[in-house]
């Protein structure tokens, strides 16, 4: 055992070093591709090489006869399986439900994007499976393809589905047209920008991989698979395969990043589960990175015209948006929701803006499907609002900081009911802005700029103040077990893919029950043990699992007081609990919670009303969203000779409510910001006219590296959330929401001397160079 430590070193608010790390830094993690079982076969997926075409036939005969090939499956074999529908009841303007609200399994009559799965080859080894996959002949009659959402909406565009006219499965409108129109008619200033949120790849460093087993005796599947929560993945896989949930077990080990992507059922999983049952062999599948560029869901891809109406004094009257969400070739569980719901809801941000209107066309295109990616509409909404604020400041002549202050929801107005139907329970947005400005050494900027200019560089600074609506914490398991070995196991249904849940949740329990940190284990990855849980996503894990643990801890204390009253021979009303110890008030009689649990395990002849265990099973009831917010300030330098943009300073002040582990929370913010910087300055998925991906590897797709990342200055300025017992707000996606506007506002500021007033993402060197040398560029084109 380790040396005794003060439990307060491990309680809420302490930067406890992660219990996860000892294994990970020694290469002892168990990621999906690390799992191997005896007798496993390997799957390889045959994918469409065309973005759009009629699938005339699939000739598998040659491949079937190749060495080691066990079976080949096509859409005909998989017709019985259906991926789960979108959990959101999305409706178009006319009240009709979203069309085509399922993902297909494998391509049947048509292929709809480069990478669309056509067949699964299962063979004795990975290399034999891949070689046979090369030999499967898909006879495809190519059709014209469309990859851009606006182009897909144009008359005469290629029609991707026979039964979805105009490639438009969902056409939504939110807001009061009359009131918004009136507000614009009264406006003294109207800011207008077309804002593009470029398509990105998720690029979790661990590619997708899985191993599926089937036990004929029990007719039960076991899926070793990445997920964002085993309970949901089990239910979704079971539903997809048409079996009862108890016939599916999901085991998730370490997950090498997900960012929203690995939480859903992909077509490959249904085919692989089918193969495992059909062949009665474990089947393994592991994606190569090049494959993941077309087989993983991608992120963003929205193109929105935004207008902000201001009164003469700068008061925001209304924000009106109209645009296109490119959702790819198939409707995924989250793809359309991001565009249709999340963007405008999050565009409300920290401002009083009374009226928000959004007109959104979710367009099908011949591109990989869009899914959730860090923030899933939250960064996009905040990006729109913060660019509009800066543009409004420019056209009205009002100082942008002053303009923000004038429109902030003020502390005395909280709780504040917004026009989009949210109720902000906490926050001090002006105070936070002021602190961010101070933290960023706003006043020292002139000197830094002068130094940049002396080195021949342009310099700019930008503010990104944001507020996000987290996913509402769903019903979540908080199970606490006092184990035979003296340890304590927390079982909960969120899932860690890098967030440090085991450490954070243990700290919550240390704080609640005074149990030593190193005695606490966290179990998340086995659907036989996680009996309910909403999983991780939408920055809600600390609110969901944290609340479940706190409330389960209350049950432990309640049972413990009763048990202690028997063992300490006192009235239950005289038992008090503090820092892990039950004691009789005013006496020195006491018993520690672990000792009490042990005594209950071994005790005999206890009175009938004495609890037999301190173990607690609790389900946290779904609770409201939280509103993490903050203010980021970026400074950039532009090399005028090349157009290269460097983020040279980055300061953020965040309100995440109660911070359980500031070290981990800072890490989440750093990573989120960097994904935002990547989207803002370099990442982009590019297709050619035929729908072929041109940025299909890390050679051509620019994923940020260390030399492109700034050092970060970070401060916490919490106001406590009132909607969950911890007072936490969630931090996982916030970095992206602040970074997109902070970086782009800074870049526009830097290019001001060139007459530039707006830059769309990603601001690659060539884009910047063209803008900075506008006249010349047009003349030479």
């Amino acid at each position, binding site marked *: 055992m380790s040396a005794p430590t003060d439990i307060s070193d491990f309680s809420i608010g302490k930067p406890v070093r992660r219990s996860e790390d000892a294994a990970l830094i020694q290469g002892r993690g168990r990621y999906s591709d690390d799992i191997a079982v005896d007798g496993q076969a390997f799957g390889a997926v045959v994918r469409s090489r065309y973005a759009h075409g009629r699938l005339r036939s699939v000739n598998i005969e040659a491949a079937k006869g190749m060495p080691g090939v066990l079976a080949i499956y096509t859409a005909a074999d998989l017709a019985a399986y259906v991926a789960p529908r979108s959990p959101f009841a999305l409706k178009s303007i006319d009240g009709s439900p979203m069309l085509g609200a399922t993902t297909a399994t494998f391509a049947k009559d048509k292929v709809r994007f480069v990478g669309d799965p056509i067949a699964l080859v299962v063979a004795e080894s990975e290399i034999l499976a891949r070689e046979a996959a090369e030999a499967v002949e898909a006879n495809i009659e190519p059709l014209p393809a469309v990859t851009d959402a606006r182009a897909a909406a144009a008359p005469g565009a290629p029609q991707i589905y026979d039964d979805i006219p105009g490639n438009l499965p969902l056409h939504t409108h939110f807001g009061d047209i009359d009131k918004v129109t009136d507000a614009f008619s009264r406006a003294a200033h109207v800011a207008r920008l077309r804002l593009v949120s470029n398509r990105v790849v998720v690029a979790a460093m661990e590619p997708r991989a899985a191993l599926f087993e089937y036990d004929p005796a029990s007719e039960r599947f076991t899926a070793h698979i990445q997920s964002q929560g085993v309970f949901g993945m089990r239910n979704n896989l079971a539903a997809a395969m048409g079996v009862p949930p108890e016939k599916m077990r999901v085991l998730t080990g370490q997950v090498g990043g997900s960012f929203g992507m690995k939480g859903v059922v992909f077509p490959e999983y249904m085919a692989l589960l089918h193969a495992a049952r059909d062949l009665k062999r474990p089947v393994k599948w592991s994606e190569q990175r090049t494959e993941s560029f077309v087989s993983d869901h991608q992120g963003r891809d929205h193109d929105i015209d935004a207008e902000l109406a201001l009164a003469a004094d700068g008061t925001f009257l209304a924000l009106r948006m109209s645009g296109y969400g490119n959702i790819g070739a198939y409707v995924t569980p989250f793809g359309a929701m991001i565009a249709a719901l999340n963007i405008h809801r999050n565009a409300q941000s920290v401002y009083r803006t009374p009226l928000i209107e959004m007109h959104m066309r979710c367009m099908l295109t011949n591109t990989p499907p869009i899914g959730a990616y860090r923030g899933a509409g939250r960064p996009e909404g905040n990006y729109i609002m913060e660019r509009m604020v800066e543009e409004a400041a420019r056209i009205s002549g009002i100082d942008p900081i002053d303009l923000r202050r004038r429109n902030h929801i003020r502390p005395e107005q909280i709780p504040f009911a917004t026009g989009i139907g949210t109720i902000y329970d906490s926050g001090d947005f002006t105070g936070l802005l002021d602190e961010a400005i101070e933290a960023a050494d706003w006043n020292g900027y002139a000197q830094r700029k002068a130094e940049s200019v002396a080195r021949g560089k342009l310099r700019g600074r930008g503010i990104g103040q944001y507020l996000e609506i987290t996913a509402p914490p769903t019903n979540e398991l908080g199970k606490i077990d006092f184990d035979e070995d003296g340890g304590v196991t927390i079982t909960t249904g969120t899932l860690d893919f890098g967030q440090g849940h085991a450490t954070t949740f243990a700290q919550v329990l240390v704080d609640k029950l005074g149990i030593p940190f190193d005695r606490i284990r966290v179990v998340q990855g086995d659907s036989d043990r996680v009996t309910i849980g909403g999983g991780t996503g939408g920055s809600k894990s600390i609110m969901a699992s944290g609340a479940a643990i706190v409330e389960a801890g209350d049950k432990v204390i309640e049972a413990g007081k009763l048990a202690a009253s028997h063992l300490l021979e006192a009235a239950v009303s005289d038992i008090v609990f503090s820092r892990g110890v039950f004691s009789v008030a005013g006496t020195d009689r006491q018993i520690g919670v672990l000792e009490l649990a042990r005594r209950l395990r071994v005790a005999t002849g206890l009175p009938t009303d004495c609890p037999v265990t301190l173990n607690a099973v609790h389900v946290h009831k779904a609770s409201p969203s939280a509103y993490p917010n903050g203010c980021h300030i970026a400074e950039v330098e532009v090399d005028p000779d090349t157009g290269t943009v460097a983020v040279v300073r980055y300061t953020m002040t965040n309100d995440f409510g109660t911070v359980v582990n500031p070290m981990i929370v800072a890490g989440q913010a750093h990573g989120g910001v960097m994904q935002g910087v990547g989207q803002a300055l370099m990442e982009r998925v590019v297709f050619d006219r035929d729908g072929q991906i041109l940025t299909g590897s890390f050679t051509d797709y620019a994923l940020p590296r260390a030399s492109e*990342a700034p050092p970060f200055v970070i401060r916490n300025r919490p106001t406590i959330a009132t909607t969950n017992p911890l007072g936490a707000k969630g931090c996982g996606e916030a970095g992206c929401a602040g970074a997109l506007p902070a970086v782009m506002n800074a870049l526009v500021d830097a290019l001001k001397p060139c007459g530039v007033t707006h830059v769309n993402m990603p601001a690659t060197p060539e884009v910047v160079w063209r803008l900075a040398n506008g006249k010349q560029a047009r003349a030479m084109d």
Partner: protein
Amino acid sequence: MAKVSMTVNGKVVTADVDPRTLLVQFIRENLHLTGTHVGCDTSQCGACTVHVDGVAVKSCTTLAVTVDGANVTTIEGLAHGDHLHPMQEAFRENHGLQCGFCTPGMIMSAVDIVNRKGSNLDEATIRAELEGNICRCTGYHNIVKAIGDGAKAMAGHAQAAE
């Protein structure tokens, strides 16, 4: 098939392999050392970094046959028994990892950077030298800190050992 023999983490291993076998496949599949990861197939991400005869290479572009006779160290061979390598300790202490997938490659590269550039590393040097490793989780801030601290600790370690 081709016969290869090499020393991996101090143990001599010999096998007959398909000549196309990559070093990373040999390490993961033949030796069951799964700490070395494959994050891409274009030698960009660095998750597969191991040391061959004391220098960092990407095991995903190295054929196993080319390191015949060499001395290979993987992430599993870095610690001395229960004593973590100072760079491993520094990554934990500085929260230099989140999902942990890129971490073995990051740590192996970090040790190599110190071997090449010495223990007194400034931030710009560390960032530049990390060009062969990608992390999607951390934003690099804490990795850079960890490597700076780990480098100093390695120097201290070496001194203590003298």
